[in-house]
């Protein structure tokens, strides 16, 4: 008999807002929005306190302020969120190899073989408690026999929910839900389904005229009907673990940085950290972003797509410097950030050699790296490491 | 390129450029700095013609093939970067670099002109800077800017700044006359605006003839024992609170008021509303000089502080009432 799978879906609640609260606990318990300070801007997201007032993501700041006059708004800080995202995945990876990051703030875990005789709920509670006590990250955990039910389960109770959704619960718990709650159904499809009388997930599961349905759902008809019946045989894909969304590092400078040279030094140190981290994860990046916040709390960022993937400090820093010159005028700086994305595993990484640089390159980083590598290979791991000026 | 007009309008700028040419001390880059309409582009083309003219003497001759093509902006050695949507992009500067990386199609010096150089994107400015750092003896750049201070200091330090001053009124008037505007309108617009562009734009407002006529009507009401205020109200109802129109109207009143004073002090060749000299004379006779000056001062105050007036129109009305009282020699 086939063994039941135990799939966890762990979802960070109000992720951006939670990161801001984790960094600055004084923000906690008060309505908080993430977005531009200008009245005409649009909120990226809001915490649960703010949502009680009806404040939502993608809402104009002016409207949010009207609904909730004491709403505190902080600017978006992707580098911070990337850091917390990494913390989150690092924490979860201790429980199983079978971990698949679904996005920056949610993960699927196949715990079938890694439960070690614990009740799934006990384990989920531990994850939730530890993520909160250690990192101040609130999560909801959904548990089910497949990824779909796990995902639906985590959606059922937020924040701090732990919900189990078994096959036998589907009729009772899933079917009464409106059809737009079905994970994966597009907002444009929903009105069409309503038109043919499908209002709830149950309506879809039991819809008799499959051919009629095919008009709207196409080749996704069967998969969606199966999901509505609580069936999903998708495997967890741990390979996706390696496909980090991004790796970055940022730092705030409370007294502000005033001198251009200071800023470049700070960026150098951030870039070195990013390069190190990419190498630790055996990754190379194709997209590079530099972020800065001025002393007036104006956020600016700029990205560039590199000609080829890289994790070399010199190659990254060359672009960092260029982006920074574009972003920065003369103002003092409160925050600097360097982040990389479009990552690929280093094993697939190739560098086209250049006839005019081939000889020059061998002299600088290349040689050093090679020497480090060969010594480390000789004596096992990490005998030598590049000295990093960590801030 | 109207060389005479240019010579008249920007004698100092031309002298600077010509001196550096004649002494063989051409700079690799110049910044022509001045307001819109101060003939910076004309001067840049003059500079190009000075370098490329085929004549031996009296360069630029304005008649040779090089001069004519520079005037038509078709000379291959003169590269002209226009700004798009008030921006000069990196691609434009790259186009220059691309061209300069090749030998010249025609022999002689190459000149590039960048319009609105103060609106270069940082990318474009950096590309240009690289270029200025490795100057080529046969390539000269002219950056046209309203405000040189907004260019990168590293660009400024590599260029010679040539200031362009606002045009003399008479130059604008002559320009407009040559372009076929009526004498009265040319005079009017040149009094009100400091560049031909602004003057043309003013005259493109169809209401201008009506407004000029309105001013005369309001003043004439005094002679006919009518209320200037009522005449004004009757004719300006449709202007409502159109601030720009009221601004223009005020400027026109000021000109008329000045004319009255010129008539009073018998300085009649300064008069703008010369067509209405009869009315002007009859009115000026009745006012005292002090009365005329008092009204003018009120008008000028309103003009200077117009942005502070919440109810501009009310302030305007008060001036007309004052005008009526001074006409009748009433005291406040």
């Amino acid at each position, binding site marked *: 008999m086939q063994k039941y799978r135990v799939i966890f879906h762990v979802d960070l609640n109000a992720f951006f807002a939670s990161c801001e609260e984790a960094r600055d606990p004084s923000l906690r318990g008060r309505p908080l929005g993430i977005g531009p300070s200008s009245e005409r801007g649009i909120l990226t997201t809001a915490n649960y306190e703010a949502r009680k007032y009806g404040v939502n993501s993608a809402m104009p700041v002016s409207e949010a302020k009207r609904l909730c006059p004491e709403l505190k708004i902080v600017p978006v800080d992707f580098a911070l969120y990337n850091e917390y995202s990494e913390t989150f995945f690092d924490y979860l990876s201790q429980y199983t190899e079978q971990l698949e990051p679904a996005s920056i703030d949610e993960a699927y875990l196949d715990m079938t073989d890694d439960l070690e005789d614990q009740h799934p709920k006990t384990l989920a509670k531990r994850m939730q408690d530890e993520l909160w006590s250690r990192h101040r990250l609130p999560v909801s955990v959904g548990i089910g026999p497949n990824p779909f039910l796990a995902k639906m389960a985590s959606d059922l109770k937020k924040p701090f929910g732990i919900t189990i959704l078994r096959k036998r619960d589907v009729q009772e718990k899933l079917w009464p839900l409106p059809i737009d709650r079905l994970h994966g159904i597009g907002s444009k499809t929903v009105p069409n389904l309503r038109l043919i009388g499908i209002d709830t997930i149950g309506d879809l599961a039991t819809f008799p005229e499959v051919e009629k349905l095919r008009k709207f759902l196409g080749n996704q008809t069967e998969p969606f009907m199966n999901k509505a019946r609580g069936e999903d045989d998708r495997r967890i894909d741990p390979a996706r673990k390696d496909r980090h969304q991004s790796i970055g590092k940022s730092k705030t400078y409370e007294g502000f940085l005033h001198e251009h040279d200071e800023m470049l030094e700070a960026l150098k140190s951030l870039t070195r950290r990013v390069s190190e981290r990419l190498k630790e994860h055996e990754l190379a990046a194709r997209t590079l972003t530099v972020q800065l916040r001025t002393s007036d709390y104006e956020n600016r960022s700029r990205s560039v797509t590199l000609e*080829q993937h890289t994790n070399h400090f010199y190659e990254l820093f060359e672009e960092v410097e260029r982006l920074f010159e574009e972003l920065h005028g003369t103002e003092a700086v409160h925050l600097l950030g360097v982040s990389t994305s479009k990552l690929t595993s280093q094993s*697939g990484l190739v560098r*086209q*050699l*250049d006839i005019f640089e081939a000889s020059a390159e061998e002299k600088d980083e290349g040689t050093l790296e090679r020497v480090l590598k060969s010594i480390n290979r000789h004596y096992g791991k990490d005998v030598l490491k590049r000295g990093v000026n960590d801030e | 390129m109207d060389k005479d007009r240019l010579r008249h309008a920007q004698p100092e700028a031309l002298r600077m450029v010509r001196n550096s040419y004649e002494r063989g001390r051409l700079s690799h880059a110049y910044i022509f700095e001045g307001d819109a309409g101060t003939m910076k582009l004309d001067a840049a083309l003059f500079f190009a013609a000075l370098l490329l003219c085929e004549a031996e003497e009296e360069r630029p001759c304005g008649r040779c093939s090089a001069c004519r093509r520079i005037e038509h902006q*078709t000379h291959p050695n003169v590269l002209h970067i226009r700004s798009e949507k008030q921006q000069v992009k990196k691609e434009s500067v*790259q186009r220059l670099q*691309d061209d300069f*990386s090749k030998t*010249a199609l025609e022999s002689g010096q190459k000149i590039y002109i960048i319009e609105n150089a103060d609106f270069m994107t940082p990318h474009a400015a950096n590309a240009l800077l690289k270029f200025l750092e490795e100057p080529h003896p046969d390539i000269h750049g002219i950056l046209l800017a309203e405000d040189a201070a907004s260019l990168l200091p590293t660009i400024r330090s590599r260029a010679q700044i040539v200031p362009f001053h606002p045009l003399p009124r008479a130059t604008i008037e002559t320009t407009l006359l040559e372009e076929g505007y009526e004498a009265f309108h040319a005079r009017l617009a040149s009094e009100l605006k400091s560049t031909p562009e602004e003057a043309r734009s003013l005259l493109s407002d169809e209401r201008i003839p009506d407004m000029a006529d309105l001013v005369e009507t309001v003043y004439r009401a005094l002679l006919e024992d009518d209320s200037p205020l009522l005449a004004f109200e009757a004719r300006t109802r449709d202007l409502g609170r159109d601030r720009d129109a009221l601004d223009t109207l005020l400027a026109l009143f000021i000109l008329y008021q000045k004319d009255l004073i010129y008539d009073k002090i018998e300085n009649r060749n300064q008069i703008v509303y010369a067509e209405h000299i009869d009315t002007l004379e009859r009115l000026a006779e009745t006012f005292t000089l002090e009365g005329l000056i008092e009204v003018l001062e009120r008008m000028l105050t309103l003009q200077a502080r117009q942005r502070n007036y919440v109810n501009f129109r009310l302030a305007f009305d008060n001036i007309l009432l004052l005008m009526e009282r001074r006409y009748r020699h009433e005291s406040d």
Partner: protein
Amino acid sequence: MRIQVNKDRLLYHLLIAQKALSTKTPNPALQGIRLDVGDNELVITTSNSDISIRVTLEDDALEIEKTGSILVPGKYFIDIVRKLDGQVVSMTEGEDNLLRIEADRSDITLNLLDLEDYPNLQFKETDSPLEINARTLKSIIRQTAFATSSLENRPILTGVNVAIDGEDLKAIATDSYRLSQKRISLPESYDPTDVIIPGRSLEELIKILESNQESVEVHIDQNRVLFKDNNVLFLSRLLEGNYPETDKLIPQEFPIQIKFNKEQLMTAVERAGLLSSRDGQNSIVKLDVRQDNVVEISSNSPEIGRVREEIHPVDEIVGSPLKIAFSSKYLLEALRVFNSSEVTVKFTGEIRPFIITGEFDEGMLQLILPVKTD
């Protein structure tokens, strides 16, 4: 100006001149075709500023009634001539800068451009042009120009460096990832010359050169190069600056040498390259020289799979085993310009440039930089 001209002859020459006609240019005069009618010739001139073409028509196809010069809007003029019926076109310059075109029952009036705005093109011939036969010239271009850079950030690399010294002519192109070099011996000795001709100009030139044994005159001076092929003059601007010294970048000693059948090698690399194309980047293939005298060409794509092709070299492999990776595009483009059916690939190391030569491609070498896989 007033002439009658055979329509087909006119069109034929216009289509040659069209290669240098500007379509988008800030200078409207360059959108025109210049027609100069002399006592017994019609000269057609076009220019897009980078290249300029001048074609002379002087045969019985022509009947000149009145000489003169005009500038016609290029695209319209060619379209009109193309669509005309009849054998003979008659063109008359009218009042008010108009051109009247009559043929068969058509009667068309075209507004002319201002001739005064046309650049003063220097189709000047030099005293001692280089003479080279058309076929040789074409093959030099074909074997080098493809390796020029298409990026403008190092303008000099967008050109082919042509250096003449005595009887030796050397053409080099590189985009810094691969390099192509061709040397020929000239029948006569010439003064030393070293110029960089834009690759794009040369690619246009081979489109209009006949592939025959007739000789083409090449007039080079400091600022331009002029090719003269009978009645066609082709003028190009040059790239300014000094071409980088490449001789010392080409390895001289090759511990590993493998002779391949060119077709077999191309097929194997093509197949491997198909699979590994990475989001729009060049596909990377690996070449593995095995102990057993077999060469393995492979590529690996985590998403799609793995290809492995085995090739048996034509001769015994000289040297030790080696693994090297490179962009398939560079190898294929290099192989394509060989006339030889067997090529020798010579290696010095895994991250060192390798070169390709062929027995029947005397004086040519293709060099490719490998990629470094970490």
